[in-house]
């Protein structure tokens, strides 16, 4: 299987096990060095190391210490301001009403959860891809339009969970890739907060191998589609078997992005622009939305048309903010799995939406 893949490394920071560095690669780097704006990988790496691996449920710091400090402070404050007893009673009556309200809501939400659970089960029964591209094709043919670029937010689950750990993620990406190719979508962007998959060329190789295997299940060995996997922030590209280096046309381009491709990349861009401005190579007046858009498209990728979140509630998890301007967002409440019904329903929603910029 080793010769299946042609791994191209563009970055000295990337692992040394890369097979070939083609002339094509240097050309890409050159285009990145255009205007001298290139993100230093060192910084990005450091940031990644210091980050938590899980998406935070909050950016604000709350721990037992801050809570107790705040409560103490509150106590002191309350002693100073003379709260009348009447006010205090009023507060507790209102708070009691609120809590009873919350209690009722919680009962309601439990019923809702049960209902949605049933609904999702019915959906899984009614839409079943059966590992056959024809079935997916039929579902998609009913739609008036399909997105060109689809992005998915995946969550790294606990190793012990179903579909958990890196293996689970690999499995999910494999399925998504097969569905995208069957539906005729040209580009798939996978966002995973911690970036476990886009660390080294080895993980890329194994991912690529897994996807090829999964595609064989869908398409058979004779007409197996080609694909490429890129990691924009490490500058790594892998092509599947059949996609020769001379002919760069593939059926599906997959790119793996993570937290570092979001705000940290914009920060790095600002830093680099700052350095250039100090050296007099760039004037602040020249910085406009087109320039930043061009750079970020180079560094991270295009703006997706459709963003599918497979989390139970909508949480963008620090997705690159620049890239979700007109993106249609889809998620299914209380759904935790990466399943075909969610994917096809997202496409259905997209086909019904009407984009009119400003008008």
């Amino acid at each position, binding site marked *: 299987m080793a010769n299946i893949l042609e791994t191209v490394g563009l970055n000295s920071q990337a692992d040394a096990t890369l097979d070939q560095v083609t002339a094509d690669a240097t050309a890409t780097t050159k285009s990145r060095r255009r205007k001298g704006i290139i993100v230093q990988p060192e910084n990005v790496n450091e940031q990644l190391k210091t980050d938590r691996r899980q998406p935070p449920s909050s*950016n*604000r710091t709350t721990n037992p210490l801050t809570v107790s400090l*705040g409560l103490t402070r509150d106590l002191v404050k309350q002693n100073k301001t003379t709260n009348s007893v009447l006010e205090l009673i009023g*507060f507790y009556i*209102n708070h009691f009403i609120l809590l009873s309200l919350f209690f009722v809501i919680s009962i309601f939400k439990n019923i809702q959860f049960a209902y949605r659970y049933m609904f999702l089960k019915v959906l899984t029964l009614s839409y079943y891809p059966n590992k056959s591209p024809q079935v997916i094709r039929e579902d998609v043919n009913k739609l008036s339009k399909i997105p060109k670029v689809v992005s998915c937010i995946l969550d790294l689950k606990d190793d012990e969970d179903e579909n958990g750990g890196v293996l689970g993620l690999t499995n999910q990406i494999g399925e998504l890739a097969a569905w995208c190719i069957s539906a005729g979508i040209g580009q798939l962007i996978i966002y995973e907060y911690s970036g476990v998959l886009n660390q080294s060329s080895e993980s890329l190789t194994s991912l690529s191998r897994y996807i090829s295997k999964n595609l064989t299940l869908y398409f058979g060995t004779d007409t197996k589609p080609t694909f490429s996997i890129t990691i924009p922030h490490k500058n790594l590209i892998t092509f599947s078997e059949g996609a020769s280096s001379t002919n760069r046309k593939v059926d599906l381009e997959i790119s793996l992005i993570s937290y570092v491709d979001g705000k940290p990349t914009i920060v790095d861009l600002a830093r680099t622009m700052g350095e250039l401005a100090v050296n007099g190579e760039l004037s602040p007046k020249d910085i406009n939305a087109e320039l930043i858009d061009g750079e970020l498209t180079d560094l991270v990728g295009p703006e997706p048309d459709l963003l599918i979140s497979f989390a139970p509630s909508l949480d963008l998890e620090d997705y690159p903010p620049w890239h979700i*301007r007109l993106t249609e967002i889809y998620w299914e409440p209380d759904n935790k799995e990466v399943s075909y019904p969610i994917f096809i329903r997202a496409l259905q929603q997209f086909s019904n939406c009407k984009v009119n910029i400003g*008008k």
Partner: protein
Amino acid sequence: MSDWISTFPGYKQVLTTAKKTFGRIIRTGPVPKHVGIIMDGNRRYAKSHNLEIKEGHSLGFDSMASVLELLYESGVECATVYAFSIENFKRSTVEVKWLMDLAKSKFRQINNHGELCEEYGVKVRILGNKSLLPDDVLEILNETEEISKNNTRAVLNVCFPYTSRDEITHSVRETVRECMGNPNMIINEQTLDDHLYTKDSPKLDLLVRTSGTFRLSDFLLWQCVSPDCAIVFIDKLWPAFRPWDMAKILINWGFNKYWYGGHANGYPHAYKRIKHDEDDDDEEEEEEVNGMLEANGVSETNGSSGFKRYDAEQ
């Protein structure tokens, strides 16, 4: 139905009292500090009700005033409304003129009566690329900002002409400009945060988009990708959006915060948590605690609310 009820005498008083009561109740729990609203659907509403587009926009303004009243009664410190996008300049010149006229007349009304300012103590701030506005509109807007600048109770950010990409570009540009004066400055996320238009407002907690569209349409992108911000899409056109709908959203937000322990998006992502080695965990926590002590991390509390929030940044 609601139109019919609103013809009753005393309806307004009842509504105001209801808002006040609701505000008093919800204030005792967690309340978002900063709410962003995309007011979408004025034109579609006008079309479906056989009204002129102008009237649709005008109804939208009334709806906004009514919803804002509820927000401020509920203890929201800052509301940001998307009044006009830079892309909206692409609309027909007649409509752009209507919108500008509407803005002019409404702001002039605010200036003359001072109702917003006196009754609610609202400070109006105009966010966006003001250089794109006609001079006469700009003059009135500046006047409004000037009149209300001493109010402290709540803030209303009016995004007029605004897009988030423009805001981020502006932030980068200003950062670079500052960097030229001081080449050794450290640029991080906080630096860019500090140069956004919304720098003086608390962090965004809730984003509401009406008209059943699942897009952010270039509004507060930088702010809303944070996991602290809940994004709510409502399947109602903006003029049909009632304070009652907003009340439901607020109470749902409060419930999620209260019930799920600080997660605004409505679900405990507990299943995601990966078990680390216990020793590792302790070390990390200790570091965090030390960091907190140094950063003097406790911000002012929410006062009457039984649910406090603390912010390391302030």
